[in-house]
């Protein structure tokens, strides 16, 4: 864990320690998860390593529950959270966000035989489920659905499959990942958002993080331009989520 005093530039602290402490869930494939050899991998993890590399320091990953990531960030235990965090206006009030490094579309996933949902408007009065740590509940509610939450993605899929809910909202890429593991699962995408939301790295809002923010922004731009990031995306998602 990082031990740091609040009155010193974060970038300088990181460079002095020689390590960048990155917090991530480690339980959200393909963003951040453990492969069969139990190594922490994923799109976010690779990005973190690249950033640390470019800063000339070592990447140290810390894994915790989703909400603990932010508690630890606030407490100064971690330098960064890289965990597929979507930018919203409300969140911007809390954190400064770097350049987006990916975009995602939200999908409505339903049981194969479900014929009643073809668009977000069809969610009106329907029962939906989503993971707690997400913005999906707000989204579903805005279309008049009745959202309940559970802890993880697999639970939401179970709920759809057992018919306990009509649909689940989730990242399109998560659906594909699930299908990869369960090719025979009787689910399908019923609709996709037209506007993508952007994924970025949140930083604590204070002047100490400014130089780090600039540095990371530079690095993300570089990675985008060089195509490295797209390559990573293809590797993990099978599609390029970097350039819309």
């Amino acid at each position, binding site marked *: 864990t990082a031990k740091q005093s609040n009155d010193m530039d974060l970038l300088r602290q990181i460079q002095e320690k020689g390590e960048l402490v990155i917090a991530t869930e480690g339980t959200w494939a393909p963003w951040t998860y453990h492969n069969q050899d139990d190594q922490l991998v994923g799109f976010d993890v690779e990005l973190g390593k690249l950033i640390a590399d470019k800063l000339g320091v070592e990447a140290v990953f810390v894994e915790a529950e989703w909400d603990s990531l932010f508690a630890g960030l606030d*407490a100064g235990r971690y330098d960064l959270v890289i965990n597929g965090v979507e930018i919203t206006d409300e969140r911007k009030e809390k954190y400064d966000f770097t350049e987006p490094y990916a975009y995602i579309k939200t999908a409505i996933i339903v049981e194969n035989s479900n014929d009643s949902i073809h668009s977000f408007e069809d969610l009106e009065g329907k029962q939906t489920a989503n993971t707690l740590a997400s913005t999906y*509940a707000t989204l579903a509610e805005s279309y008049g659905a009745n959202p309940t939450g559970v802890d993880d993605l697999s639970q939401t899929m*179970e709920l759809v499959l057992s018919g306990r809910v009509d649909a689940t909202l989730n990242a399109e890429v998560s659906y594909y990942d699930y299908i990869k593991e369960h090719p025979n699962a009787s689910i399908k995408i019923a609709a996709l958002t037209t506007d993508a939301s952007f994924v970025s790295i949140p930083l604590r809002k204070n002047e100490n993080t400014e130089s780090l923010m600039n540095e990371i922004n530079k690095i993300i731009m570089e990675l985008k331009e060089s195509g490295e990031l797209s390559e990573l995306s293809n590797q993990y998602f099978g599609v390029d989520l970097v350039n819309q």
Partner: protein
Amino acid sequence: MNERLIEILIDSFWKIVVPGLTMTIPLTIISFSIAILLALFIAMMQMTNNKILNQIARFYVWIIRGTPLLVQLYVIFYGLPNLGILIDPFPAAVIVFALNTGAYDSETIRAAIEAIPKGQLEAGYCVGMTTPQIMIRIVLPQALRIAFPSLSNSLISLVKDTSLASNITILEMLMATQRIIARTYEPFALYCEVGLIYLIICTVLTKLQHKLESTFKLEY
């Protein structure tokens, strides 16, 4: 604390309290009531001379205490549908919490019964009472008084354990909190807020415990 945070906390107060009133508290009360009855029953079963009843009770306590509540919720909610049994979230939660708390409480009650001197039971026999009659009128009133603080422990734990019901789509206080955190990214402050609300509920229970404890004080 900045203004934004204060606003969030105020705004979220009712969003957390409402599921507390409509879900956490009813779920706790219903489950606990069933659990206590179950626990009495199981404690009795463990103490009879009937080997089969004995084994059944021991098996139940062993399985339930031995596995995490979360897994029990999974089995009932996500496992049973495979056998064609689809139970709604609320009854499923009641079943699991009652079964779970009942197993723990049965051990507490058994211990308390064993703490009552045998002479009490024997005196009951000698005035012609049957074992169940003695249990209900003589032994249990004394035993429950001894078990009381431990049973309060289990009730107060249950209040907070019901938060696991979020795993089976029940919107209780912790889930309500986590929803707000997902939006605002203020886990620490919001967890402290929900902690405070739990504290209020548990304060009522603790006061009640102390009140009942002194009302039913037994001296010997």
